[in-house]
């Protein structure tokens, strides 16, 4: 095979591999992703067995702890639907009633169970230089 | 408040001074060029154009020389790298000699081009 032909073959192989890998990546991302919902949307759309990211405000007076489990309720940012959660795992420092949180949950019966270590609490001020998050691993 | 105005004026003045320095220098050069050349306006314009063309050409040569020198440095580095590759056992002797000869040929070609540029330089009108 002459050099020019060899180069073309190499290029085609490389490009095809890249396309295949990228497609695999893109395809799995859609199935592995958790949709981000508000509590109102969650109540309407949640199906058991799928995980969802719910964003909302911690309801005043709803936080209590029992052993390793943390129980609290989350409502829409603008008030409205409230959903009860039980959560295990690290609780970030800024977490308190009235703060905005994101937590990944799955529907279980009438309530929702938070995925371990998935609780993120918003820093109270509008902007911060802290680039690392309280988001948990695994 | 007045301190503020003073500070601002100073700052503004400084900035204008710094930014306009090259422009003023160029105008002084042009005027000096005019004074040296023939008093008529047309001739001084021509000579300043010539001076401009000369500097452009000089810059062009400097640029290509810079380029050639960078190529030369890169080529020397390649020769040294090839030798180090051979001495650390990554190339067989035959392969090394072939690559080394190739590189030296390329290096000499660059050296010739540099020489040609140097000779051409002082002779340009």
């Amino acid at each position: 095979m002459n050099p020019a032909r060899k180069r073309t073959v190499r290029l085609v192989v490389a490009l095809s591999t890249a396309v295949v890998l990228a497609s695999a990546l893109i395809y799995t991302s859609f199935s592995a992703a958790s949709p981000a919902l508000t509590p109102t949307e969650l109540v309407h759309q949640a199906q058991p067995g799928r995980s969802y990211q719910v964003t909302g405000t911690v309801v005043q007076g709803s936080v209590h702890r029992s052993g390793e489990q943390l129980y609290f309720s989350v409502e829409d940012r603008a008030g409205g639907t409230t959903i009860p959660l039980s959560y295990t795992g690290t609780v970030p420092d800024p977490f308190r009633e009235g703060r905005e949180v994101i937590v990944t949950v799955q529907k279980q019966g009438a309530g929702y169970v938070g995925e371990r270590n998935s609780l993120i609490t918003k820093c109270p001020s509008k902007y911060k230089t802290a680039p690392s998050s309280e988001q948990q691993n695994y | 408040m007045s301190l503020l105005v003073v500070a601002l004026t100073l700052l503004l003045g400084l900035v204008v001074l710094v930014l306009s320095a090259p422009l003023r220098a160029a105008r002084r050069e042009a005027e000096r060029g005019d004074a040296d050349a023939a008093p008529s306006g047309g001739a001084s314009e021509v000579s300043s154009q010539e001076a401009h063309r000369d500097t452009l050409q000089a810059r062009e040569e400097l640029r290509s020389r810079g380029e050639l020198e960078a190529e030369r440095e890169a080529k020397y580095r390649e020769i040294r790298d090839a030798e180090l590759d051979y001495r650390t056992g990554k190339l067989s002797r035959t392969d090394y000699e072939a690559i080394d000869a190739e590189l030296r040929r390329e290096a000499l070609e660059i050296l010739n081009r540099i020489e040609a540029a140097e000779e051409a330089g002082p002779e340009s009108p």
Partner: protein
Amino acid sequence: MAGLGYACLLLALGVCLYGIGASLYGVRSGRAEFSASGRRAVYALAGILTVAFAVLEVAFLRNDFAFNTVADTSSRTTPTFYRAAAVWSSQEGSLLLWAWLLSLWSSLALFLTRRRMREIASYATAILLGFGGFFIALMIFYANPFATTRPAPTEGAGLDPLLRFPTMMIHPPMLYSGYTLCTIPLAFGMGALLARRVEADWIKVIRRFAFAAWLALGAGILLGARWSYSELGWGGYWGWDAVENASLMPWLTATAFLHSLMIQEKRGMLKVWNISLVLATGTLAIMGTFLVRSGILNSIHAFGGATLGVPFVVLIATLIAGSIYLVVSRRDMLRSEHRLDSLLSRESMFIANNLVLVGLCFVIFWGTYFPLISEALTGQEASVGPPWFDRYTVPLALLLVLLSGIGPVIAWRRATLASARRNFIVPTGVALATLLALLASGVAGSPAAIAMFCCAAFVFGSVGQEFFRGTRARRAMAGESLPVALLSLVRRNRRRYGGYVVHIGIAVLFIGVAASSSFQHASELSLSPGQSTRVGAYTVRYVRPTATLTPRYDEAHTGSTLGLGAVLDVSKGGRHVTTLNPSEGFYASQDASQGSVGSLIGGQPVSHVSIDAGVTRDVWSAIAPDIEAPALQRIIKAGNATLSPEEALYALGYLARAYLKSPPPAQFHFIVSPLVMWIWIGGLIVFGGGLIAIWPAPSTVRRRVGARARARSVRGLARA
């Protein structure tokens, strides 16, 4: 004073506009004096922004609460060091820092190139001033750091306690330096395309700044990871958070560029690839800056609520469109001079390395921006979590480390297959020995981690072999003693051996990452004093509670008013391992509704983590004391009812005593992570190696080598 600051911004914007005009006119008309004036505009910009920055700094140090940013992020009780650094903790202040750093680095770049590359430099000047003007305009119209409120409040909100750590305050300037340094190669790259001159000289300048950007960004990223690990309460150093990813992406493309640039230098190949990498790095840096402040992605910072979104989107769209147009329209200039000689060559290893790095960048990009992508494509915003990222980045990271071990063994241009095979024996042997040792010692459960250990061992074997052989060759050639030979080997081949050191550092870093992620023991514990529990092989015992009272104006600490914590005794197999004392610091808030005592401790609480860092493992613990316990709450309520704000401090004393006497059970987060220290050590090694690689060879060496090489060339030709 605020007026002076704002006027400086206006002046700065004017200077930017003038500079852009002067540079462009200078390069199009050929009149050098206008290009020079344009360059001076950058110097002037640096001067003006220095004044503006100084005005803001002074305002912070003097507690001038008329300035909104000072009132929002500082207070009389914030210690001086943090007051000084609070300048960049707000949106406005950080924009000013970014613009100022940009002007400083641009001035340096243009000063160093003032005699060469006139046309390229003129275009680069215009582009850099364009960026500067953009950020200044943002400040003038959207987020003014010099906005004031009169009458001035008497006290500020204070710096968020989460930021009151030294690492956290060095991190932004370092990171911003990295970002702004990334824009300089972009400007020069675009300048080269605009001027239609892609010359060999250009490479040298761009390389230096790409390297500086790589160093600064790398430092910023590592500092952020270290802050996250040692000062945040979750015990991790990387969470695939959007903002972390945003800083990693340009670093990856910069790494790729530093490698492939060498190929362009040697063989005149990959010009399109390189210029694209340069443009991508700069664009990703701007996107990274944008991500932090725009609120388009959910991160710890912003939950929706776009603030500066639209102008940034316009800028980034312009950059991307402009880059594509320039590269496509100048593609004739960017034709390769040579072709790849052989697949078995260091050049092709570098290309493979580039592909892996860009692949990594693409995975991270996709995952980071996925919420936007999915919303655009499906109408539903969804996000991917760390497990998804790990699934793709781990194999790519393994491949990257493996390549860095293969590369040194292959020669430039065309390697001899037989030699290559021979050279693989030692590294493969080391890797296999490691595998056997690991399996024999019972390390199991994470194939990825074991694979990484073996790949790292391969790198050690390969690089070690290189150092050994190089030193041996040097001794054979020059008859020097062993240490001298090693030193002169490295001195004469800084790029190669510095690069080898960098690869060792990366391998060490990944060993730390693999061990600490795969073999970590983490637990949530709920303990009362005297109670102990088992975590894996360790026994943790709550020895006694601790309480510290820090006077309100104590400047030695971080300004916390009350600290509640515990002393933990950690032992393994009956033997004492370490003693930890994590605590939670409570800070004052401005919220009067919390009561006189409540507001003393009602601010953002911050975990003070206790770490015993060891060579083989870190023992880490954080505590969340139960401040909501009824006994403590009773004291707080009583204090609120009876004490005035000035007397409220006494209540803290009662609180502390009550906590010490009968502490409620506390929540502990307890982690034992193996080999974490090696992550930081690996990072330092990478730095050291980078410095070696970029250190300019002394000119005498270069001249001597040059003359010798020329003489040899002549002799060589005579032989032929």
